[in-house]
């Protein structure tokens, strides 16, 4: 955990209600893929947890969906604004766990952390297949970016307006990708539906309302096969065998 004051470089919509925010700092902003940050929001007491979509030495990209007052306040910020962040939170994805070919599955805004995951897996020489699920064509995120990294990307839309008609579970059964390890991030119902379809060599990035994001408050606890664990501190990424679903 580090406290970082960042400058907002850009903040603009990339899909209906979804924004991409880039931040810079004169301090180190590198993250492991799958880690998250806690952003202080004007007029709110609690910070808002957002996954790192991409990080470099002095640069951070977040992808977020406006769902309430906090994210709406973020969306209203103008380039040049200063932001107060807690960085380097959570465990992140285990890229070592994949030996050859990775499968990445993202649903909606859950696609956000898959960007850096894909970059880092490709840099480590892994093959990457990505399944992305959205409600409709206009909501599709990150497809071009992931393809540019050399991943094979399949998109499913619930209304069939683009790609495979259906959910990511449908896509999984249709595409039948080869992989030795799977990484999943998305809404809870999606993850629960994928759970029985994936073997033990998989991991899931979870979400819960957070009080602190730093392990102090026990606000974000889930029950695991090894006892209670804080999503923010021992997660947000949990190996499949830890999840008692």
């Amino acid at each position: 955990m580090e406290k970082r004051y960042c400058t907002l470089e850009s903040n603009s919509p990339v899909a209906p209600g979804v924004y991409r925010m880039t931040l810079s700092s004169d301090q180190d902003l590198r993250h492991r893929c799958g880690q998250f940050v806690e952003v202080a929001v004007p007029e709110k007491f609690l910070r808002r947890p957002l996954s790192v979509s991409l990080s470099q030495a002095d640069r951070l990209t977040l992808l977020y969906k406006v769902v309430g007052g906090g994210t709406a306040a973020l969306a209203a910020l103008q380039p040049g604004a200063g932001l107060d962040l807690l960085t380097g939170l959570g465990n992140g994805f285990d890229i070592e766990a994949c030996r050859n070919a990775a499968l990445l599955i993202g649903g909606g805004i859950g696609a956000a952390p898959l960007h850096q995951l894909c970059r880092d897996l490709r840099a480590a020489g892994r093959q990457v297949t990505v399944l992305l699920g959205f409600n409709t064509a206009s909501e599709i995120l990150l497809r071009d970016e992931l393809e540019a990294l050399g991943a094979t990307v399949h998109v499913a839309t619930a209304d069939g307006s683009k790609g495979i008609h259906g959910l990511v579970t449908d896509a999984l059964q249709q595409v039948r990708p080869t992989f030795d390890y799977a990484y999943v991030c998305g809404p809870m119902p999606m993850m629960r539906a994928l759970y029985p379809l994936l073997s033990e060599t998989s991991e899931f990035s979870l979400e819960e309302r957070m009080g602190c994001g730093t392990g102090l408050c026990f606000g974000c606890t889930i029950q695991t096969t090894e006892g209670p664990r804080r999503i923010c501190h021992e997660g947000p990424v949990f190996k499949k065998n830890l999840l008692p679903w």
Partner: protein
Amino acid sequence: MVNDTSVTLAGIRLQNPVIPASGTFGFGFEMAGCFDLNRLGAISLKGTTLEPRFGNPTPRIAECSGGLLNAVGLQNPGIDALVSDIAPRVRALCKTPLIANISGFSLDEYGICCEKADQCEALDFVEVNISCPNVHQGGMVFGTDPKAAAAVTRRARKATSKPLFIKLSPNVTDIVPIARACEEEGADGLTLINTLLGMRIDIRRRRPVLANRTGGFSGPALLPIALRFVNQVAKACRIPLIGCGGVASAEDVIEMMMAGATAVQVGSASLHDPLACPAIIDQLPKVMEQLGIEHLKDIIGIV
């Protein structure tokens, strides 16, 4: 100027009055990599019960104007894990006085936990929480009635010779008889206040935000309420008080001490900024300088 921040709490010297409040600073390890725990006045560890508890279902947190609601519900690994594993490990990381925060659902549970804490060398204080609003079968009921508060204090007093603090609830009509009852039964001091019972509703989903329906309100907006309780009890009791509620700055620490507190706990502020306690400790001498305070202990209860 001298800028002496030290205070003495039930015979134990704290280098400064700033204590992370129970439940808002994990078990003490979490921040060990981020700042030197030796800088803290003391540490109040996460509330512990006889048996391990998962606590309440999630969501356990709801944002509010000026603070938050929590309904963690005393998640903890049980008193045995605290005394045999956790407290010794925190002690190995720092010399800071450690406070065991104890909850229970019966007099016996409070008693047994205090006995076990008493036997643990790593623990310096026992803080008995009779004010948790987030567990159904007990907790707060002990803190809302002078007789029940007296009974818990008596039992805890028998169980430990360590400095004993009773943590009181603000959800009461009159705190004075409760505070006096604890004092009469031999408490070395009182911690006040715990959270105010509150509720939020998700108007889209038409149900409470918290799975537990209600939760405890804490955060900056609690400060004036806590100051009032501290000042009221300071006028009515002689034992030292730990002021708690809404403290987020060195100025707030001083305000709480002027109201009557010998030491001050910082809770929710650490949720927004995990470095809040060391930041406040850094600021204290500067603010003392501005206000012409040489020895912090001189301002205790001057209002």
